[in-house]
């Protein structure tokens, strides 16, 4: 681009040449742009600020905070951030497509090696998050972006959290419903990396079936779909289940053979799938273990990313998702729920209300902790050391032998 061009065209923040809109995010528009300093194509997320008088969007802040710590080939790279006209802008590497577009595209045939490659990249990105004590909490095909080189990268960390402190309780209002683990559907507040593993398993199944695997219409229905697929869990299978806050008993259904659900999958593939779909989160396979599973070392080898089939370009493959209502009869709830269930917004994604609910939930917990005088350890701890405890005068300075 010539000197004259850069002057006549308006650049965002004197640097980025704005192109077409790529998508509408939860908290702002995402548009394509060219970095005139490097020539790199980027995606810029413009975060709306203003209305609520609460400054930088809470969800955006989470995303920034975590992505600044997570640098990995299978995690979207946050290249830059800058304020412009009162709005915060996040600059990401541009990604051509996403896994949902791949799965939906009827012109694409996914070989077993292709599926292995996509799920391996998904698990690699997730393993890096978990190694850094970050839960993604919103794993689903359209948050798995695919670059020009075929690399799959985890994106959309707006719901992600650090789970370092084991005693912290989290909201269970995370994930799009179809990807939600059974412990979340039963209302658990103490969960771990297993929730991401379950969601990854749903994505794995979706790659095999080419349609979302467990499409529940409500939380209760979602559990019904899960139990239809894998049998109603017995307490012996998942001892903690009956103690979960929203636990309700379901009619007993035996587990059908996994093979009947995934007729084309190899034995190794089914074995890994079963381990990822384990009911008891404590017994569920970890992401790292999943990556070490023989499925990934047995033939066929995963397809090299550059050779993976992809839709031609972003937005070109808008074939409608084939309808599959999982019409078969699911199990019914036996006992009435112990308490009225939370009303979930009827949306795929926990947008708006969901996020707010999440925030309120977490915040309420803090307030409750503070009110009960249990602000972690700090409450009973001195704010500062008052040396008068050692006597009326400051204590003689202790001598430290250097």
């Amino acid at each position, binding site marked *: 681009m010539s000197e004259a061009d850069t002057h006549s065209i308006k650049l965002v923040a004197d640097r980025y040449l704005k192109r077409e809109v790529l998508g509408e995010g939860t908290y702002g528009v995402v548009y394509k742009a060219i970095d005139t300093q490097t020539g790199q194509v980027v995606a810029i997320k413009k975060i709306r*600020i203003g209305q609520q*008088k*609460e*400054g*930088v969007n*809470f969800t955006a*802040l989470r995303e*920034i*905070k*975590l992505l*600044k*710590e997570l640098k990995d080939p299978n995690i979207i790279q946050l290249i830059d*951030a*800058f*304020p412009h006209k*009162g709005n*915060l802008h996040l600059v990401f590497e541009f990604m051509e497509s996403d896994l949902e577009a791949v799965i939906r595209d009827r012109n694409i045939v996914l070989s077993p090696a292709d599926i292995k490659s996509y799920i391996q990249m998904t698990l690699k990105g997730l393993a890096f998050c978990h190694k*850094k*004590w970050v839960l993604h909490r919103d794993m689903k095909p359209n948050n798995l972006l695919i670059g020009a080189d075929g690399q799959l990268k985890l994106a959309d960390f707006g719901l992600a*959290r*650090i789970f*370092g*402190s084991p005693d912290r309780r989290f909201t269970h209002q995370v994930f799009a419903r179809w990807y939600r683990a059974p412990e979340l559907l039963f209302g658990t507040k103490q969960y771990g990396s297993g929730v991401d593993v379950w969601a990854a398993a749903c994505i794995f199944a979706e790659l095999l079936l080419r349609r979302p695997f467990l499409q529940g219409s409500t939380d209760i229905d979602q559990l019904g779909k899960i139990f239809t697929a894998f049998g109603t869990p017995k307490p012996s299978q998942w001892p903690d289940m009956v103690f979960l806050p929203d636990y309700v008993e379901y009619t007993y259904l035996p587990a059908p053979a996994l093979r009947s659900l995934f007729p084309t999958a190899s034995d190794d593939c089914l074995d890994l799938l079963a381990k990822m779909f384990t009911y008891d989160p404590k017994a569920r396979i970890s992401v790292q273990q999943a990556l070490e599973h023989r499925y990934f070392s047995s033939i066929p080898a995963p397809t090299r990313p550059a050779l993976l089939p992809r839709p031609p370009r972003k937005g070109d493959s808008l074939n409608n998702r084939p309808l599959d209502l999982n019409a078969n009869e699911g199990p019914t709830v036996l006992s009435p729920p112990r308490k009225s269930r939370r009303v979930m917004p009827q949306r795929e994604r926990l947008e708006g209300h969901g996020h707010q609910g999440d*925030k309120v939930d*977490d*915040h309420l917990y*803090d*307030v409750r*902790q*503070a*009110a009960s005088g249990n*602000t*972690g*350890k*700090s409450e*009973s*701890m*001195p*704010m*500062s*050391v*008052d*040396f008068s405890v*050692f006597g009326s005068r*400051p*204590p003689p*300075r*202790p001598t*430290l*032998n*250097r």
Partner: protein
Amino acid sequence: MAANFWASSHYKQLMEQEEVDVVHSPDKEKGLTLDEFKLIKMHMANYIAKLAQSVKVRQRVVATAVTYMRRVYTRKSMSEYDPRLVAPTCLYLASKAEESTVQARLLVFYIKKQYNDEKYRYEIKDILEMEMKILEALNYYLVVYHPYRPLSQLLQDAGMTEMTQLSWGLVNDTYKMDLILIYSPYMIALACIYIATVLKEKDTTAWFEELRVDMNVVKNISMEILDFYDSQKILNEERISAAINKLALKP
């Protein structure tokens, strides 16, 4: 968690004391000395802690807010970034980053309640504007590690939980200094344990030896903490206001 720290942006951003102890030229031109610079930062750390008590947030949020404030002043001058606005804004930002959001209007309410002084009064819009500038000054790095977790862990492992109270208070006081910008939280925790055990006359030589840490560093940090307590004896409000007034910020 420790293994985690060494791969974090926090670790990569650790600085040398000499780099932290730089009075930026706009402040220097106004006659601000290094001692006064440190004094104002300490005063603002106290301010953050006091505000935090009113709005009831965890100690961790306070620690993160103070760290943000100190990081800001390694890059920006106090003349451009009024400490009396930076301090509450850092608390606001830290509360969000640590997942226990405090509303800006609540902060503004308590600021007005605590300070009659006009010069401390800022409105919601000032805080929100400053939030963006602080994010930029921090280069958007928001994850901070603190000595509290290694402290609990170490004391538990050593079977010295009776030292928790004292060493926890010492850790809180380290935020009145720049230690968190210079040393790893693990070493700061060890220094606080060291001081606590020396004060309580508990012999921990063997325990420290087994940890295989650089005792010189632990002792250096301990000395700095004790020096700080010494210097506090000659501290008073007038010196603080005199220092802030030098900046001649709000008309």
